[in-house]
């Protein structure tokens, strides 16, 4: 939403990112180097892309716990297609098809089955993971040609290809969210589903599409991940759902739906990327990092809730 409150909130997130970066700059001479910043950008890409789908779903008042498993299933489908000698475009279509199909199933059951998204996507989380393991018999699919791997390793000028892919994804997703009827309905459904229904909007159809978007984003993330690792692993994408939810929520999207923006989510994903990178540079143990990141998530939402009643009424 372009309300003053939402803008103020997003501004706050950007300030949070800048303050965090300033502190890390002061503490570590390596932080503010071009090489490290590109490194952060590249490490953030996958979470940032998954979080796009998550933002759509959360904006509509839902949740998608299956994104990590869909990344794995989509990835192994891609890997298998490539290894069986399919052309790259065909393999990419297969990966995307698998992701979108999983999302459609999620959305259809949530819409027409009238089940809570939490339950449906929890089930899909297990089903997609199981299918990935079954399909590969638990073994990774590895070793792809240079052309495919350039999706992760290549650069245009000095900018890594994944960063460009992520940028394109954000621009398109942002335009869809703000300039199309579909985007309007995403916010409207999350803001007041009943009022939207009574306005003649097909809730079932649009909800299904929203989960399909989330599946699509998982597939794009799967392509980037498989190219980076040069391997498609059935156990890939573990805990991605939590990172994506965290980025969305830190970015100011309300878990109740209806309020938030993709700009916020991108900043949220960057905060998580910068934090991880900075803590690594400072030599903080990975165990301690988990604690810090958890505290940041709670802190961000806490600040949100404190700000809301004062600004929301009036």
């Amino acid at each position, binding site marked *: 939403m372009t309300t003053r409150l939402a803008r103020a909130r997003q501004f706050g997130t950007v300030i949070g990112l800048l303050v965090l970066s300033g502190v890390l700059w002061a503490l570590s001479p390596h932080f503010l180097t071009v090489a490290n910043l590109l490194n952060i950008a590249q490490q953030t890409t996958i979470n940032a892309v998954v979080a796009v789908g998550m933002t759509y779903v959360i904006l509509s008042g839902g949740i998608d716990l299956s994104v990590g498993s869909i990344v794995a299933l989509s990835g192994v489908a891609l890997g298998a297609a490539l290894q069986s000698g399919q052309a790259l475009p065909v393999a990419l279509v297969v990966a995307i098809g698998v992701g979108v199909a999983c999302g459609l199933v999620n959305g259809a059951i949530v819409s027409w089955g009238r089940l809570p998204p939490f339950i449906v996507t929890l089930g899909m989380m297990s089903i997609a993971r199981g299918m990935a393991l079954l399909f590969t018999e638990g073994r990774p699919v590895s070793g792809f040609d240079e052309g495919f791997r350039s999706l992760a390793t290549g650069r245009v000028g000095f900018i890594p290809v994944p960063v460009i892919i992520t940028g394109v994804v954000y621009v398109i997703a942002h335009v869809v969210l703000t300039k199309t009827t579909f985007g*309007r309905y995403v916010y409207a459904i999350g803001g*007041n589903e009943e009022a939207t229904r009574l306005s003649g909007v097909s809730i079932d159809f649009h909800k299904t599409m929203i989960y399909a978007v989330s599946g699509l984003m998982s597939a794009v993330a799967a392509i980037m991940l498989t190219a980076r690792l040069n391997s498609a692993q059935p156990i890939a994408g573990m805990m991605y759902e939590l990172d994506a939810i965290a980025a969305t929520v830190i970015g100011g999207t309300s878990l109740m739906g209806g309020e938030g923006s993709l700009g916020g989510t991108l900043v949220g994903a960057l905060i998580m990327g910068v934090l991880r990178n900075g803590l690594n540079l400072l030599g903080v143990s990975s165990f301690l990092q988990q604690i810090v990141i958890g505290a940041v998530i709670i802190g961000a939402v806490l600040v949100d809730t404190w700000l809301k009643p004062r600004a929301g009424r009036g």
Partner: protein
Amino acid sequence: MRGIRKAFPGVIALDGVDLALRAGEVHVLLGENGAGKSTLMKVLSGAYQKDAGEILLNGRPVEINGPRDALALGIRIIYQELNLVPHLSVAENIFLGSAPTRWGGIIDWRRLYATAGQLLGDLGMEFSPQTPLRALSLAQRQMVEIAKSLARNASVLVMDEPTSALTSREVDQLFTLVQRLTSRGVAVVYITHRLDEVYRIGHRVTVLRDGRHVATTTLDQVSIPDLVRMMANRDVGEHFPKVRTAPGVELLRVERLRRRGVLDDVSFVLRAGEVLGIGGLLGAGRTELARVIAGADRPDSGRVLVDGKPVSLTGPAAAIRHGIGLLPEERKAQGFVGGFTICRNIALPHGRRLGHGGFLPGGCEERLADPIVKELRIKGTASQPVKLLSGGNQQKVVLAKWLAGDAKIFIFDEPTRGVDVGAKVEIYNLMNRLTAAGAGIIMISSELPELLGMSDRILVMHHGRIAAEIDAAQASQERVLSAALGLAG
């Protein structure tokens, strides 16, 4: 209770109301929807704070600042929705939160069941205290709720429409129980809409109207028509700017609509240029009727014709395509998206028309909404979310949604509820403009003066049926109210 006054923003709900209860009496509280009965009882039970007046118990002034105070003073309310836990036993429910304990915290089960059993016996109830609550009928659950109040030594018991869901045999049981209560010296306040019950159970009656005390009298001194007269004749207080338009062609015909439990064989016709008022008590099926016509709920049988042609209302989208626009009763929950701006809310039903291949051209929502915002004089800035607007302006936004399209059949469900006086008149004027332009309006209203003042014809619903059809010229508050109460007339 003396001189109780309670105001909400824009409305005085109670204005100097007196209510005196005697030990051992059943005091019936009567009044139309919105007369102030519930507000008065909420003040008594501490759910609301009174603005002025005093409450005396046994002659001593008492302060009731919250539900806890009221409970401590022995004042209890039994609402229509019972506050019981279905999975616990009868005895556990009776002593919920105050179970007898030993050794500082261990529940003394033997004593719990023994005390509960004795209490149930005293009240003439035939089920054991060990029975799980979910095994009981609704009437029996109500009795458990009463036993629960007695276990806490209630001296004043308020019952809010306790018989609305009971069979006649269960009503008999309940009344026997109420008599036992009064013989123990409990004062019972009995709220009901069933006038026939009033004489069976009540000793005295107090009638409220428009938040004011009309009369308190013993029941042997008044007849049912007297009571109806006291409840009706509400202050019109405001002038209704009704402009009559000669009714035109038939716009909407509803034939034998049924929906289980809420609508029973409803048929009527709406013509161009007329306001068809629908009266009735809460729960009479008015809102349910509106929702069926607006495509929000499906009927079990019956059909709806628009312009003489049967239409299949498969959902709100279909109803909108046929030019039906609904102003829902629950504006906030159903009328608008609170976080959206005025323009986006107005444009919401028109996305398909506005979009070019799914894309919304820049400013198209504003171009659609601006003329209507100006016409209706909706006050608010372009970027302000609708949830921050006043009730009247919010209602105008919901209206504007349908004005932006080509709706010609409007269903207004309580159009002026929670709306300030100025905005009310604007909404009435707008209804005149719509009918003058050939639209038909179905107006559901619990405000009798509004119903009489703005309708051309009035349908009165009772228990899901059309109980009466009255021409506005011959309508009186008493006639409408009698029909709404299910009395012949």
